[in-house]
């Protein structure tokens, strides 16, 4: 039985050509899915609710929050903008090491 073709096991040159063709084809495609594909997938995916993701990086003494581009959350610096217009601010504080007895 032959090995399944995957993104990782095809030759480098062939992969580069596939990427070039993808860009040509995807540029002209508007992303409209067939109605039956859309509804079948939607039915399943809506039952798989995923948590909202915020990534945090500490640069020097500052906390920088980031959200993926598709996220409904907006993060700016150490602040997250909530839907009702309020902001959630996360402050870093240093903690003195606890004396171990």
């Amino acid at each position, binding site marked *: 039985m032959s090995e399944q073709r995957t993104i990782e096991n095809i030759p480098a040159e062939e992969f580069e050509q*596939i990427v070039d063709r993808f860009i040509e084809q995807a540029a002209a495609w508007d*992303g409209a899915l067939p109605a039956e594909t859309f509804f079948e997938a939607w039915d399943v*995916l809506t039952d798989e609710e995923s948590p909202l993701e915020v990534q945090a990086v500490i640069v020097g003494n500052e906390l920088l929050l980031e959200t993926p581009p598709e996220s409904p959350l907006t993060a700016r610096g150490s602040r997250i903008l909530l839907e009702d217009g309020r902001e959630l601010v996360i402050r870093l504080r240093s903690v003195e090491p606890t004396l171990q007895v």
Partner: protein
Amino acid sequence: MPEIILPTGFTEIERAMVLRYLEDVAGPGQDWLGLVRTFNRLREAVVVIPGKGRRTFASLYTRLIDSHLTDPFIAALYSLDDVEQESVILWASGARRIRPVLEMAGLYAADDPPTRLLLAYCLYWWHATAKGYTFEVEIFRDLRQSGVDFTAHDPRLRSERFTPYDLIVLGFRGDVKTSTYFLSLAGRVLRSDFYITRLWLSEVRSRTLVVFLKTPMWDEIDGETLLIAWRELESCLPQPVRIAHRGGELVVSDYGVWKEKIRAYQSRQEVQDE
């Protein structure tokens, strides 16, 4: 090259699916349910960059691609006469910049197979988000030309780009999404009152614009509709219908019919206000 740590249990089937996506993005044989799950899983893939630490695919996309390409792309959309046609070259130009950006950052080389997944991930999200904004600008322009009274966020402004909804009509919150982008967000609760999207109708082989509405908005502008299974949708459009969704119901209306009803409602309100 960096080490790439894929999500636990990432399979050969998923690797094959990503390749099929690149080989024939718009083809009829794509498993979109599998693709959306796979690319959502890849958000958590980690790149270990020597001397710099660990970053997820999602974080790298935000920093290297979205932060550089998306704002100029959206700004350029507003200067186009024919947004759908002219944006094709614009989108391709952005897509062609992704590979060199990753190469310059030492994160992609064709002969380092694991890094191909990062390139595929970036191309997938560039297509989902950039085509999504293109569709949004097309719809905003069409609604203005059609005389529908609405307020919309301005995605050219970073402070407004990520608002939890795209526009307000009759006080109801709405979103404009391509159907592929819509699916990518489907694991979230539908918080808006209506969604405008574009679907492909296989039987008649043509595209159509539809609006999904929660019942309070539909009740405000119209009223009774027929309850159907979604498989019957294509044969019922443009007639507005109701479909079952997550224990509740959504109204699905042809976009043109929806616009007519909104305009008629707004005209009645103007007369009442005079």
